[in-house]
């Protein structure tokens, strides 16, 4: 522990120079126009600020949430047109309309988010590209509002020429500060952990109670709002708002490049990236004549960055430093299993009513093309039991789990849980008290162990989104659960560094965070060592005594037959029988389908 602890301390200490650097940079940025009247550099900084605001925003949905938008320049255009149209049609100072530009950008982002929310991965990219181009077409064709390709000319600035471009400059500095504050805040709240969880594994995030569409929409709106306002100022600053210049996909590319180059998922990376991109932009426009050279430079740079520096500057440097700091120190990961502590307080919620069906599955069907993976499967799990689900490979066990948790949609059949029919998305099932683990563990690799365990949510409320990611009762409970599974020492390790067995323990702690009534375990003893199997069994028994009901898929027969009662047997997508372990060992159908004629349990049942 001490080795890693001190390494982390050194890392924290090494942050001080960073902070000084950032403070000096911020001061220089604010002071520059006061000490120099060079308009060339003022112009460059103003354009870098627009890129930086765009990149810091995009980082929220792309860096934290993992969803790439190629349409960010649409928000610049929307903002510019909002300010341009409002000023010319209604009147007033353009700066008065800047907040409205933010609102319009946020509303359009929310609308696009609503369309995209049910889709995955590349569909989002498609929607953002489509949004950018369709807005451009609207701006070209809706002559009466936008003046078509002739564009809009906002009024000239009315302030004294001595102030040069100060109002543009300082309002953009303020917007950058605002967007950085928003990004920083999001990363530290439940919204941030939710978005990270979505980036790492969206299906898994949904099973632990993350209402994924809400998070994605919030993330996308957050990426748009400040950029919309910046767009309003940018259009006013340029003095000319036209469809081609405002809805320019190359600007989208430059914003993406700034995020990737600087480091996605980091707070300052996008700012660094923007500061690197703008000089290149200037070079290509002024020295090389723009047009083709601009495309060549930024298209080429995008391709090269993806190929050669996909992580970006800040994460690469950080990795290098960390590796140096840790050199020669024994790693904690891979060490012996830590001691386990029993759960404090909170005994089983209510006395268990014997015989009550907690989960009932009726006529479940799932086809994959011609393969009937689950074919009219019906069974029930009684409250307070540790039920086992066994069957040969391909009999549909994991598919049944996926259908119950709605990682997949059933073709037919009903699932009843705790007296209600389950029909909603996975997170509602988590709120109802259903938790599951995966056969091949799915922890969030880039998050720490503790962050992994606090990520699950027992309910949804708008207020809770604002709560600190690791804070209050949740954090306390998460640490308690880590102690319970014996992983307390590992709380600050990144989950990707854990062994397979350790990940199983983290997944169990994650599920327990939901305080579920029923826990579905998919091969809890698969691929782990005997000591850990014994521990797993011990924990399952302890949790069961505290009122948790279990349904366990497992191939380790001694474990199943010793631990589970009743045992359900699945074959060819149907539940062929159920009974006590003694009963199913004698049942000819089970012997035929799974155990085999010569099955006999020679070793003593239970812990080996």
């Amino acid at each position, binding site marked *: 522990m001490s080795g890693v602890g001190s390494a982390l301390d050194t890392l924290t200490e090494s942050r001080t120079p960073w902070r000084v650097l950032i403070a000096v940079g911020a001061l220089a940025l604010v002071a520059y126009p006061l000490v120099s009247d060079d308009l060339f550099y003022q112009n460059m900084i103003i354009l870098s600020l627009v890129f930086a605001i765009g990149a810091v925003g995009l980082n929220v949905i792309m860096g934290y949430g993992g969803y790439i938008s190629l349409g960010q320049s649409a928000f610049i255009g929307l903002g510019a047109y909002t300010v341009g149209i409002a000023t010319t049609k209604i009147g007033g100072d353009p700066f008065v309309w800047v907040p409205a530009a933010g609102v319009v950008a946020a509303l359009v982002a929310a609308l696009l988010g609503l369309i995209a929310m049910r889709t*995955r991965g590349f569909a989002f990219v498609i929607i953002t590209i*489509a949004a950018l181009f369709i807005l451009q077409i609207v701006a070209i064709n809706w002559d009466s509002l936008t003046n078509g390709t002739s564009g809009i000319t906002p009024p000239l600035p009315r302030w004294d020429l001595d102030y040069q471009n100060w109002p543009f400059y300082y309002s953009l500095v303020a917007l950058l500060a605002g967007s950085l504050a928003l990004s920083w805040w999001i990363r530290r709240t439940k919204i941030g952990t939710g978005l990270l969880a979505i980036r790492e594994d969206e299906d898994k995030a949904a099973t632990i109670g993350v209402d994924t569409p809400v998070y994605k929409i919030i993330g996308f709106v957050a990426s748009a709002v400040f950029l919309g306002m910046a767009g309003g100022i940018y259009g006013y600053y340029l003095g000319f708002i036209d469809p081609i210049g405002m809805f320019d996909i190359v600007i989208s590319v430059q914003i993406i490049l700034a995020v990737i180059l600087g480091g996605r998922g980091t707070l300052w990376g996008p700012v660094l990236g923007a500061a690197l991109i703008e000089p290149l932009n200037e070079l290509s426009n002024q020295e090389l004549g723009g047009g*083709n050279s601009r495309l060549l430079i*930024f*298209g080429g*740079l995008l391709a*090269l960055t993806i190929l050669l520096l996909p992580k970006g500057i800040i994460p690469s440097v950080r990795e290098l430093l960390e590796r140096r700091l840790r050199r020669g120190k024994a790693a904690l990961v891979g060490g012996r299993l830590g001691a386990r502590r029993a759960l404090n307080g909170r005994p089983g919620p209510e006395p268990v009513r014997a015989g009550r069906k907690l989960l009932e599955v009726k006529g479940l069907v799932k086809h994959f093309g011609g393969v009937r993976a689950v074919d009219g499967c019906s069974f029930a799990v009684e409250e307070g039991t540790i039920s086992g689900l066994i069957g040969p490979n391909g009999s549909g066990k994991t598919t049944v789990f*996926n259908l119950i948790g709605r990682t997949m949609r059933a073709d037919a059949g009903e699932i009843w849980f705790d007296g209600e029919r389950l029909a909603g998305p996975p997170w509602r099932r988590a709120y109802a008290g259903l938790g599951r683990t995966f056969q091949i563990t799915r922890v969030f690799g880039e998050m720490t162990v503790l962050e992994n365990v606090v990520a699950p949510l027992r309910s949804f409320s708008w207020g809770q989104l604002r709560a600190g990611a690791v804070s209050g009762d949740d954090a306390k409970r998460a640490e308690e659960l880590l102690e319970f599974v014996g992983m307390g020492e590992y709380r600050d390790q990144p989950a990707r560094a854990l062994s397979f067995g350790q990940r199983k323990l983290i997944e169990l702690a994650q599920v327990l965070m939901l305080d579920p009534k029923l826990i579905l375990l998919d091969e809890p003893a698969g691929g782990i060592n005997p000591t850990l199997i014994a521990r797993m069994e011990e924990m399952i028994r302890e949790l069961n005594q505290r009122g948790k009901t279990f349904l366990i898929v497992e191939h380790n027969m001694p474990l199943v037959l010793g631990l589970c009662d009743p045992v359900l047997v699945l074959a060819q997508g149907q539940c062929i029988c159920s009974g006590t372990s003694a009963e199913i060992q004698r049942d000819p159908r089970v012997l035929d389908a799974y155990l085999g004629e010569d099955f006999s349990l020679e070793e003593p049942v239970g812990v080996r």
Partner: protein
Amino acid sequence: MTEFIQATAFGLLIGGVYALFASGLTLIFGVMKVINIAHGALLILGAFLTFTLWEQLGLDPLAAIVVTTPLMFALGWAMYSTVVRPLRGAPLSSTVLLTFGLALVLEAVMGLVWGNQSRSARPSYFDQSFDIAGIVLPRAQVFACAVAILVLTLLYLFLARTWTGRAIRAASANTEGAALVGVNIAGVSALTFAVGVATVGAAGSMVSVLYPFLPGSHYIWIARVLSIIVLGGLGSLQGAAVGAVLLGLAEVYTQTYVSAAWATAVPYVLIFVVLFLRPQGLMGTRLREDVAL
């Protein structure tokens, strides 16, 4: 009524060319799970090559596919080995950004070589048309659609009848499975990418006659290919063909009954409508999602 039949005929004719255009992308996605955003730029490149062959040597633009297809095949192979292969196994988003970067580079190169003015190849039959019972069918469109269907048929026969074609289909259905039974995935991937780029080169030859084009035209083709994907689902040639014909019809109907200016918005509107109503696409192939669980 004549107007409607006329529009439908136009839509079907252009849909045939769209189908050839989309087939390469679908093929590449099937094997490599890469959405090649540079597909539109490669189409325009094919059109420029054809234009030069026609202008300098007087070669018929539709016959030019005999030259453009092998050239584009070689380019596809080179693209795969230099930039696409290093990203094997990378998330889809990385390859989307990579190929988008390539699209911009191609646009710039075409601008430097051919200039940024609008071009189009005009063979002798450019202004002629067939007249069948009052329905006007421009010869260029009829010939282009016929050649597109011919190339698509050859592609289909290649995939269905040859050993190499079957290897491509196997790799497309299940990459690991194909590797297990002895398909050389690296070789098949390179071949598929090259074949995909070659078919889009052939489509480019047709486009050089049908539309005026310039380097920046590739954006509208990105939009078209994306909407065909959304309509027809990814990875199946039949789905792509149906999506292509639907898009062709929708564009021509909008042109006829609304306005030419708004017809450019059709691919985008289709993307929004389809993804909103059916996020999995109209005919998206459902793949088994849990193999990795």
